[in-house]
Structures are given as structure tokens and as C-alpha cells.
């Protein structure tokens, strides 16, 4: 009987309509997004579907098997003469320094078989040792096949092919000589140069130009200018340098728009220092006030935050100066004034142990900040002017002066190094016109970009991993750059080119060594210094000391702590500064901020940085206008009073693209998507600089850009939009525009945004546990009791008896105390959300890049993410404290929905939570895998055997933490033409990019689930080292990629069963809790409650 039965899905099948017959031949009955990947028309019309493909493959497999009864023969080619310290299969580490004029970091480079594959911090170095996403991702920029392959020579309007260095050298030397002899100026335009060796090369070149009868000038300009700070310090202390800021000594920190944890000056040094006193269980915990326009990484870490328009920030500085005893008044809103009063009281209470900084590039604001620090007796303690820092030297005035000279035809030749002026210059500088007027333009960038359009000679400089240098980042501190690989292309460091063109044939390596020997003394100490990567102390080159501005009388004298130094910034200077700092406000003010991921845009070709979600907005791949949600509602004429309307209108997700607006500033118009940003000051718009770099259009396509796609001119389809031209310049380049800014909606236009987080609140669950310092101290030892801030979650059993989740368990106990139990302890107090761990994980574990369109579909492959939650008072309503009772569930639901749209205006607090596989001891994923591809190890790891996985995705569906990622496509194979997107964005795609892969970790295939392995290859490696040494695994010898990349040490990795490991102790801390403990998964990842110092 059963055989006669016919099952059908619908009437079409029963009747076998032609449409049905056709569709049944296809693998997927309905439209599948695969087609979007096909990208080109010919593929669309192709009748080949996957089933045919498999048929073909089936044939070819058989053929191949028949043809090759014997497996292919592989050759092994050992060294002819093996270097003693290079063993295949064993990693070598080299110390070096990352400095691109923006970030400074002492790094350790891991190489395998001669290839740099990982960048980690050099923790021994006095300056830095911390890394951020920009630094650790820089290894991928080395393998960028879009870098220039060799020098270029412009013939007519196009670049000649196959030019070699001797051509360039002879022709460039000749051009430079004739420029010098013509009596015109020869200029070197660079970013900040902190290398004494480079300085030597520049001097050699200058002397050569002089000998030819020409005048030479070296102009330094920083893309993200700090000239205001430098000039203010010149005025205040007679030294045009940065002081050393000791964030670790400051009990009260007040920052006015300085994102010192992410992008401001030497952010990595500050971050490391700052983190030292952000734990509540130390002797003291610093208190951090942040007053800023857009929500920044520093602002989200702050204990107290105030949102201000850019024009109001100067007012706030003035107000604070008045409040700490100065004679200025500032006009600020009452709510901010209250916060400033509180800050002032604490600053005064912590004289000599407080710190005020400002991000503004306005010299006036900076002089005021100096005056505040002086009043507070912070000089000599938290601000050390004697310990000069040289990492910013650029002069905005010199740069615009140079542009004017160029326009006037006074410059005969210009060499450009470390800077892409045609990209970074404000529009007012008129750089295109200026460069057009110079006869000889020599560019030493790393690829053909905006500036090469104006150059006649292209002499590409090497990547820092291929370079030699000695850097002098601060007084008495030297940092070394050594190559970890030979130059991959025919590139040459620009310093060596300068030497060449001055008739000096020595290599830059010798030159660096010569310079270093002048203060190191001996060959032996040179080897030591390069090995260590740094050198402290020793002979310090005498810096020119300019007399202080002490003409005016010291305004007021207060009893200073013994060690503090008073600079007595005079009333006259302050009055002048007030005048300079004061700017007129407008109805809408614009801030051009620097994003954590891309920084100043130096690495705009690095897909890891593009795919790393922004810490705040969680958007990938683009820059956009951020505005306060209320402002966005007003702009589009929506009813901002209605929470439902607000939520619906502002939501950005897979199928909800962003709205597009036209931003108009001083005659310049740009179309940009708008992203609502809770916490941003009302009446402001903010856009990130560093985007829209020429050449990035190769990554994008129509689906990425929505209505902003330019079908006619592809060069407009870059990733993001360049807003450097919107910078304004008075005395200093300013990143804020306070007048004449308008935004107008572009009717009907939308722009797809790829975001990794669409919900922003915790829905009342104990995800990020948070308390304040007073409660923390009060409940010491009782935190986990009932009513404590870290209350243990109890669940009622069938008889209503409250039990812990350990007692109420579906699973059988298994021994977890025997041997190792690897785990993490993540301190939410220290996490600043920077994303360094996310990119480090990318590096270490060969995680694929998937491109914007896939991220938009939530298919990013990141093994770990950093969740960002907003909170405001609204959320308290829906907070579930008792998990057995959901009184009035519908009210609760409404509260959660309401919490998604903040009614707190610009007052919102932010918490971060790094989230990776929790390696549950009772893992829900393991029980549902039909093929046992994911299993538990005796060492507490939740293992994933890729070869066993058949891709059912049950595990991902059963994971309460949503940390499992599925390979929807073959991201690593260039030979599949159906996926052009991956070819564009994925580093694993081309032969060169593949060099960055970690050889100890498998590259996953299509249809396979993957997730955090807790860096099992590093665990195994460290264990093996310990076994060979005959010791136990020491805490300092084992780390995961995320823990080693964390600049604040928020992530600790180790053996939970070993009390000598930090995690072994921290897991029992008052603050320790398990994420969603109520689910009963018993993870091996412990989180430490966030304690806010309010």
C-alpha cells in the first residue's frame, strides 16, 4: 500500500506543471543570494548549477583517480647551508617598532619559515608594548599585492613600464640638481620624522642641495595634526614638543574631546598607563571625566561623560579653568556645569595627581589646558615637560606656507615621504594647484594613489617590516626598526633614496647603524639594542632649550607639592588663549573624528581593519555621518516622541539600510549615509576621516553602495568618502566646523550598512554585570549573596526549591579539576572595546574576510566579537532580578523595546563585552552534533574537528552565545569564479596574501562550522615547550591571541586549575561571574563585573 502512496509538496508537483519541472531541476527552488555573487552577467545566464557542477566534478574525480594510482610526488628542498637559528617549523621572533606618524608601538614580530605572520607587543619596551588593531593588522599590509612593485617614471602623462632604480636615480638626481641650481627651493615634505638616522640622511641631502647653490627646506605635516598642542607648549614652556602624560599617576582624569585611549597622540602608551589604575581592587581607582562631541572609545570608558558641541568644548575648558581658580568664565549648559563643578572639586582635591587633556588642535584651548594643569600642580608629576616626546612635530603653518610658495612657483622640486598630501590636505590649502606648479615631484609612497597623479618620479618606499631605522620617540628613549623579511618588491626606503640622490652610496642599514653607534658605543650594544628593540638612557642628544616665557608676573602662587613644577602661565597668555579658543557656535556643528579601525587612513587597503566593527557603532566598511537619534528624527520630520516610530525609523540592519543626507560645508557637498548615534551631542554631526582612499574602489561593487553607487565613474566608488578636504585651517588645522554646516535628506536614497550588532541593550539579562565603586567596597566578600551586585543566580526546581545551576543540571558531572583547565578571565572594567583582540584573532587563526555584503547578512567569520551595550535609566524597568518570575511579561517586553531607543538624549553609558566561544563544560552545541564533530576535551576546551563537520549548523542554533560561525562559501579559493567578492577582499585569496596565514592552523572549507579554539595551537605549543623544559606551564609563557593583543590586559588567559595563574585566582573573585549562568552551560570563560567610579 505504502508504495502506491504519493506525497507532494503542492499542486504544481502533483500536476507536474512546466514551471515545477524546471524548478525541480534547480538545487534551490527559490532565489538564493548566491546569484548576487556571480556579479557578472555571463554567469547569471549560465545554465550550470551546483548539481551540474558536482556531476562534472564527479567525472573529473574519477578521471583523476584513474590517472593517478600513485599519489603525486612532492619534493623536499632543504637548505644548502642551513642558518643555525632558522629551523623550519619553529617560529622566530624579532623586535621592531611600528611608527607610521600616527601610532607608535614596540612590537615583536613572529616569523615562520622567514615570513612575518604575527605582530605582538614587546612588553619589555619602556614605551608602548601595547598594540591596537592598526598595529597588529599591519602585517597584512606587507602582503598587499596592490603595493607598488617597483619605481615609476612619468613619461608624458603616463607611467613608463619596467623602470629600474638606476633610471630613477640618474634622472631624479639630475632633476634635483637642476632645481637646486635654478635657485628655486628644494623641499622635503614628510610626516613627523623621529629618526636621528633619517635626520642625518635629510641633512646630507640638504647639504648636497646647498652645495649645488639651492635652498633646502624640510617641512613636516601630520595628517592628524597636533600642531595646536605643540604650539601651545612652545608658548607655555618654550619647547615645541609633547610632554609625557603619566595617566598612571592621575587619580582624576578630565579629557575634553581627547580620545586618548584610541587615537589621540601616543594612545597606546596612554592606554597601558590608564589601565593600571582602573581596577577597583587596587589601592585606588582613577576617576575619568570625558566631555566630547561624538561618542568615542575614551568617552565610553569614562565614569562621567558629558556631550558637548565642538564650540562648547572651548567654553567648558574655560569654565573648568575658572572653577580651579583661574579667572575665565565659560558658557556651558547647566547639566554640564554640574559635572564640571564636580570634576573641578576632585581635581583640586587631587592636586599634583590629576590630569587634564584636550583633543582640540586649537592652540588657545591647549594653552588653557596647560594653565589648568599648572594651577593643579600637575607639572612634574602627571605631566612631565622635561621628558619630551617627539612623536608629533608637524607644523600646519609651515605646510600651508609651503603650499603658497609652491603656487607662487618658488619651489623647484619636492620630495614627499610618509605622507599622501593630495589625500590628507584640507581643501583650503589648494594642494592640487600647488603640486601642479612644481616641476619635479618625487613621491615615495607605497602605491599609486592621489599624490602619484602629480608626481613625475615614483620611488616607492619599503614596508616597515622590510626596513631599518632607529627612532627617538622621547628624550633618552630609542627604538629600533629591523627588517623581518627582504623587500618583497623592488622598493627602497626613502631615506636611502635621499642618500643616493645626494651622491652618498651607503645603504641606509649602515647609516642607521652608524647613527646608533654614535650613542651606543660598541658593536655589542648595537646587537643587544636591535635584539631588544629599544635602548633607554645613555647619551642624550642635547635638545635646544628655549627660554621660557617668564616676562609676565606669576599670577598666583599656591603651595606646591615638593616635586611639582610651576610654569606660571601668565594672565596675558591666558587672555590671549581665551580669545584664540573662542569660536562662534552654529545650529549644526561638524566634527571630523578619527576612527579606531582605520586611523588616519594609512592602511585603507587592509581588509582586516575594514571588517573590524567600529567599537561604538559596530558598523564595518564605511564612514558615515553620526547624529543624535533625536536630531535624525527631526531631520527627516519624524515624530521623535513616539518610541515605536523612533525604533522603526532608526533601525539599521540587513534589510534596513541607512538614509542618505547631503552634507554641505563651506561650498563643499558630500552625500553620506546617516547613522543615529546615542550619546552624541545634540546639534552635531560627525564623520570619520581616513576613508575614501583612491584605489579602494577595487573592493566595492554596486551592492555595497546602494544609491550612492556611481555607475559612470568607478573611481567614486571607494570605501567610504574622503572628508579630509573638509578640515578647516586658520592658524591650525581644525577638525571641527562650527558654522555654515547643513545636512539635508536626499529623498528616497538609501545606503546599505553592514553592522554586526543590531540590538543594543541587554534585555534585562545579566550580560554585562555592572556596579559602582561604593557598592563594590561596601559588599566586599558578600557580592555573591542575595541582594549583592553579583548575586548568584538561583533557579527553582520542580518543587519550587531554589537551587544553583550547578545542582540543577541536565548533564552528568565530569571531572574538571584533573590536569589543565584552560580558561579566560575577562575584566569588563579594563575593556575599552578597541577591537585589538578581534584583529589579533584574525591573524592567529586564519579567519576569512567576507566583505561588506556578507557582513550585512551577519555572516562575518570573526571568532570573537566585542558586544557593545548602551544603557540608560529606562533599562532598569525591565531588569529581571528573579528568574522565576516574569510579572507582567508584556510590560517587560515593552520596556525592552523602549530600551532599544534611548530617551536619555545625549546621556548614555556604554559597556563592552568581548565574547568568544565560552568553552562550556556542559556545552549545548556538543550534544546536538549528529556526527560528534564538536566534542569536549579533558583540558576544558570545546573542540571543533572541521573534517568531521557536515554543516548541519545545529550547534550554532543551540549555542546561547551565538559564537559559532559558518563558512557559507569557499572564502579561500580564487579558482571559483562565482565569488569575485572574496577575491577582492580576502587576504587568503592571492598567492601573496596567503603568506600571512598561520601554518599551524587549518584554513577552513565551505560548509564547515568554526569557532574560537582558545588558540589551541598556542596551548599545545606552550605545553610542548614546558614539557621539553621539564617544568609546569608558567602563566607568563602562555597566552591566547586575544589576551596577548589586549592593550589593557583586560583579557587574561591561563589554567583555571593552577593557582599560580592569574585566571586561577580571578575565577573566585567577588566580581567573577559566568555569562548567562542561568542556562547552566558552566563556561570556562569568567567575566569580572564592571565597576564604575561614580
Amino acid at each position, binding site marked *: 500500500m505504502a508504495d502506491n502512496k504519493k506525497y507532494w509538496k503542492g499542486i504544481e508537483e502533483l500536476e507536474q506543471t512546466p514551471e515545477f519541472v524546471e524548478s525541480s531541476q534547480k538545487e534551490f527552488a527559490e532565489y538564493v543570494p548566491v546569484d548576487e555573487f556571480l556579479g557578472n552577467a555571463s554567469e547569471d545566464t549560465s545554465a550550470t548549477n551546483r548539481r551540474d557542477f558536482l556531476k562534472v566534478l564527479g567525472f573529473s574525480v574519477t578521471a583523476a583517480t584513474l590517472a593517478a594510482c600513485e599519489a603525486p610526488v612532492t619534493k623536499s628542498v*632543504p637548505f644548502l647551508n642551513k642558518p643555525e637559528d632558522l629551523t623550519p617549523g619553529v617560529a622566530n621572533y624579532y623586535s621592531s617598532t611600528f611608527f607610521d606618524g600616527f601610532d607608535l608601538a614596540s612590537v615583536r614580530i613572529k616569523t615562520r619559515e622567514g615570513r612575518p605572520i604575527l605582530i605582538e607587543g614587546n612588553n619589555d619596551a619602556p614605551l608602548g608594548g601595547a598594540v591596537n588593531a592598526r598595529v597588529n593588522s599591519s602585517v597584512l599590509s606587507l602582503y598587499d599585492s596592490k603595493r607598488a612593485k617597483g619605481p615609476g617614471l612619468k613619461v608624458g602623462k603616463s607611467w613608463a613600464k619596467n623602470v629600474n632604480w638606476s633610471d630613477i636615480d640618474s634622472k631624479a638626481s639630475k632633476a634635483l640638481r637642476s632645481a637646486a641650481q635654478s635657485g628655486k627651493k628644494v623641499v622635503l615634505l614628510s610626516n613627523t620624522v623621529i629618526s636621528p638616522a633619517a635626520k642625518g640622511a635629510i641633512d646630507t641631502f640638504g647639504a648636497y642641495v646647498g652645495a649645488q647653490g639651492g635652498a633646502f627646506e624640510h617641512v613636516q605635516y601630520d595628517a592628524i595634526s597636533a600642531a595646536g598642542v605643540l604650539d601651545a607648549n612652545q608658548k607655555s614652556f618654550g619647547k615645541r614638543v609633547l610632554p609625557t602624560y603619566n595617566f598612571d599617576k592621575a587619580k582624576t582624569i578630565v579629557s575634553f574631546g581627547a580620545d586618548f585611549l584610541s587615537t589621540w597622540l601616543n594612545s597606546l602608551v596612554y592606554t597601558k598607563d590608564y589601565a593600571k589604575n582602573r581596577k577597583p581592587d587596587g589601592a585606588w581607582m582613577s576617576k575619568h571625566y570625558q566631555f566630547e562631541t561624538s561618542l568615542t572609545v575614551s568617552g565610553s570608558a569614562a565614569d562621567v561623560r558629558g556631550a558637548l558641541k565642538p564650540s562648547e568644548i572651548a567654553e567648558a575648558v574655560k569654565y573648568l579653568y575658572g572653577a580651579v581658580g583661574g579667572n575665565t568664565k565659560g558658557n556651558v549648559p547647566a547639566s554640564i556645569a554640574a559635572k564640571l563643578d564636580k570634576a573641578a572639586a576632585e581635581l583640586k582635591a587631587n592636586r599634583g595627581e590629576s590630569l587634564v587633556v584636550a583633543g582640540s588642535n586649537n592652540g588657545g584651548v591647549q594653552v588653557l589646558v596647560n594653565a589648568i594643569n599648572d594651577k593643579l600642580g600637575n607639572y612634574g608629576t602627571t605631566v612631565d615637560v622635561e621628558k619630551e616626546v617627539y612623536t608629533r612635530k608637524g607644523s600646519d603653518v609651515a605646510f600651508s606656507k609651503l603650499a603658497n610658495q609652491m603656487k607662487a612657483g618658488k619651489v623647484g622640486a619636492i620630495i614627499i615621504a610618509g605622507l599622501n598630501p593630495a589625500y590628507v590636505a584640507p581643501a583650503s590649502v589648494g594642494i592640487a594647484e600647488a603640486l601642479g606648479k612644481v616641476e619635479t615631484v618625487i613621491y615615495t609612497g607605497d602605491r599609486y594613489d592621489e599624490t602619484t597623479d602629480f608626481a613625475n618620479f615614483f620611488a616607492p618606499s619599503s614596508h616597515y617590516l622590510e626596513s631599518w631605522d632607529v627612532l627617538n620617540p622621547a628624550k633618552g628613549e630609542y627604538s629600533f626598526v629591523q627588517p623581518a623579511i627582504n623587500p618583497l618588491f623592488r622598493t627602497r626606503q626613502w631615506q636611502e633614496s635621499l642618500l643616493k640622490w645626494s651622491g652618498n652610496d651607503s645603504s641606509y642599514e649602515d647609516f642607521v647603524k652608524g647613527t646608533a653607534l654614535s650613542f651606543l658605543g660598541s658593536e655589542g650594544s648595537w646587537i643587544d639594542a636591535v635584539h631588544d628593540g629599544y635602548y633607554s638612557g645613555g647619551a642624550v642628544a642635547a635638545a635646544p632649550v628655549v627660554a621660557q616665557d617668564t616676562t609676565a608676573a606669576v599670577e598666583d602662587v599656591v603651595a606646591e607639592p615638593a616635586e611639582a613644577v610651576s610654569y606660571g602661565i601668565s594672565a596675558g597668555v591666558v587672555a590671549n588663549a581665551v580669545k584664540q579658543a573662542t569660536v562662534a557656535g552654529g545650529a549644526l556643528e561638524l566634527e571630523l573624528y578619527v576612527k579606531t579601525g582605520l586611523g588616519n587612513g594609512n592602511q585603507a587597503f587592509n581588509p582586516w581593519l575594514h571588517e573590524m566593527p567600529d567599537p561604538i557603532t559596530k558598523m564595518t566598511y564605511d564612514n558615515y555621518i553620526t547624529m543624535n537619534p533625536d536630531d535624525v528624527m527631526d531631520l527627516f520630520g519624524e515624530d521623535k516622541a513616539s518610541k515605536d516610530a523612533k525604533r522603526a525609523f532608526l533601525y539599521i540592519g540587513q534589510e534596513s539600510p541607512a538614509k542618505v543626507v547631503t552634507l554641505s560645508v563651506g561650498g563643499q557637498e558630500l552625500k553620506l549615509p546617516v547613522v543615529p548615534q546615542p550619546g552624541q551631542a545634540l546639534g552635531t554631526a560627525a564623520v570619520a576621516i581616513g576613508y575614501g582612499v583612491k584605489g579602494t574602489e577595487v573592493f566595492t561593487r554596486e551592492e555595497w553602495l546602494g544609491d550612492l553607487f556611481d555607475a559612470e565613474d568607478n573611481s567614486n566608488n571607494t570605501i567610504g568618502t574622503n572628508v579630509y578636504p573638509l578640515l578647516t585651517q586658520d592658524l591650525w588645522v581644525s577638525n571641527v566646523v562650527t558654522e555654515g554646516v547643513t545636512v539635508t535628506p536626499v529623498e528616497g536614497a538609501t545606503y546599505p550598512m553592514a553592522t554586526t550588532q543590531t540590538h543594543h541593550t541587554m534585555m534585562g539579562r545579566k550580560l554585562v554585570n555592572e556596579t559602582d565603586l561604593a557598592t563594590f567596597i561596601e559588599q566586599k566578600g558578600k557580592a555573591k549573596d542575595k541582594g549583592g551586585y553579583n548575586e548568584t543566580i538561583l533557579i527553582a526546581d520542580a518543587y519550587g526549591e531554589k537551587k544553583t545551576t550547578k545542582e540543577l543540571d541536565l548533564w552528568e558531572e565530569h571531572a574538571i579539576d584533573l590536569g589543565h583547565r584552560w580558561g579566560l578571565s575577562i575584566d569588563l572594567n579594563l575593556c575599552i572595546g578597541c577591537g585589538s583582540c578581534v584583529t589579533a584573532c584574525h591573524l592567529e587563526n586564519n579567519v576569512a574576510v567576507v566583505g561588506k555584503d556578507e557582513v550585512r547578512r551577519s555572516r562575518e567569520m570573526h571568532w570573537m566579537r566585542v558586544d557593545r551595550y548602551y544603557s540608560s535609566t529606562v533599562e532598569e524597568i525591565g531588569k529581571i532580578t528573579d528568574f522565576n518570575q516574569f510579572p507582567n511579561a508584556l510590560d517587560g517586553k515593552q520596556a525592552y523595546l523602549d530600551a532599544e531607543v534611548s530617551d536619555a538624549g545625549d546621556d548614555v553609558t556604554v559597556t563592552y563585552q568581548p565574547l568568544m566561544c565560552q568553552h562550556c563544560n556542559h556545552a549545548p552545541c556538543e550534544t546536538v552534533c549528529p556526527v560528534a564533530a564538536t566534542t569536549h576535551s579533558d583540558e576544558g576546551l570545546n573542540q571543533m574537528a572541521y573534517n568531521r563537520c557536515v554543516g548541519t549548523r545545529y550547534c550554532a542554533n543551540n549555542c546561547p552565545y551565538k559564537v559559532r560561525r559558518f563558512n557559507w562559501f569557499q572564502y579561500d579559493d580564487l579558482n571559483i569564479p562565482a565569488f569575485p567578492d572574496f577575491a577582492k577582499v580576502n587576504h587568503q585569496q592571492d598567492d601573496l596574501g596567503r603568506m600571512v596565514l598561520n601554518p599551524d592552523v587549518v584554513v577552513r572549507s565551505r560548509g564547515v562550522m568554526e569557532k574560537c579554539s582558545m588558540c589551541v595551537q598556542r596551548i599545545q605549543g606552550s605545553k610542548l615547550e614546558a*614539557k*621539553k623544559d621539564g617544568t609546569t606551564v608558567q602563566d607568563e609563557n602562555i597566552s591566547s591571541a586575544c589576551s596577548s593583543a589586549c592593550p589593557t590586559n583586560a583579557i587574561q588567559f591561563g589554567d583555571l586549575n593552577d593557582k599560580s595563574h592569574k585566571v586561577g585566582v580571578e575565577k573566585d573573585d567577588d566580581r567573577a561571574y559566568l555569562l548567562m549562568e542561568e542556562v547552566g552551560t558552566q563556561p570556562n570563560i569568567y567575566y569580572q563585573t564592571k565597576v564604575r567610579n561614580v
Partner: protein
Amino acid sequence: MSIGVFGGEGFENSEEIETYHPSRPSAFGHDMLVSQNEIDCKYCHSGVLESKHALIPSANVCMNCHKYVKDKEDCPESAEKIQKIYDAVKFEHGKGYYDVDAEGNPVVNAAGEIVYHDQQVAEGDPIEWVKVHNLQDFVYFNHSQHVVVGGLECQECHGPVENMQTAEHYAPLTMGWCINCHREKEINQELKFSKKPNGYYEKMHDEFKEAYKRDEDFNFTVEKIGGLECAKCHY
């Protein structure tokens, strides 16, 4: 039927390995070097001491002996093979190393005589060897774990290499074979293989002995310390 799509160099099954006899340009002579001359395997394959790879020795290791041993009288065939090493490193027996010019001709002095050196100077083409043991890319195997830590003899996996002229497959190198050994191999709890007490294992072994002391049938095999777990080899 599927093929080893993950690792291009891997084998599909043990039968394939048994029939895998890649042709070698010349018969190397492990038997003579190991049996007659009693050279330790680890002398040439020194990678086993520190690396995941055993490593085929670099030519300079061969030259440690063959700088002196030419073997012309005893065995003319060997002389031919040794000459291959000499050609690669640019060496003439009894005279020394010489440098070569761009065309590959020896560098001569003014008198037209070849200039000889004590140390290798020329950077020529390295010798290409045929790889016999190919493990799939998705398996992590570390020689030093087995040789240094585990104290295994090379022959346990590679068979009587001392009797083989050219290296041949002895073990199938399949997962089943690996696992079987991990199931059966008892760990030397007294740590005799190690020169010094191994601080890593001591504590762990004591804990295990304590935990399983009532179990009379307890065999302290590799399996018991996690030797069968997926992520010990696959990651």
C-alpha cells in the same frame, strides 16, 4: 568516493600508501649509514629535537662527514652519489670549497688556478629530495613531542630504516594507526626516558595515579591523558 581535498599531498587510505614507492634519482643508502657506520638518525634528522618537522638534512650537515669521506675505493656507486653533494656545495675532495661565477664556472685566480676555501662560499642550487612521508595538511604532527618528550624510537613509526636502502613507508600514517598507538602505548610513568625528572608530568601523573588507584585494570596509556582528543591533532 572522495579524494583528499584538504591536503593535496595526503593519502586517501593505507592501500595507497602501501603502493606508494616514488622513484628516487638514486638509492640513498640508509642501511649503510645507519647499520654500518652507526650514525644516529637524529644526527641528520635533527629537526626531531625541536621542530614539528624531522627535516631532511641540509647539505652542510652531509659535508660534516663527506668533507673527508669520499668512499671511492670501497664503493664506486656511492662516490657518484657523494659527488652530487659536492656539486651542490661546490667542493672538490682533498682541495676545498670553490666559488663559482655567474655561468657556474669555478672562480680562478690570475694564474688560472681554482681558488679553494675552507668554508662553503658558493650559493648554488640546493639538492631536491623526494618526500616519502606525506601527512595531510589538516593534521598537526610534531616530531619533537614524540621523540623528545615521549621518548619514542624512530623505528617505532618508521620501521627498520637501518635495513632499508631508500626510505619506504612502514606505518600507514592513517588516523586509525595513530589512534591505535595512542590507545595502546603505555606512558612511562617513571619518566626513565628523560634525563631529569619532568616537572610537567610529575604532578599530572601523581594526580592520575591517585585518581585511578582503585582501578586495577587501569593502563596509563596516552589516551588517558587526552591522546584521543580531536584538538590534539586537528586545529
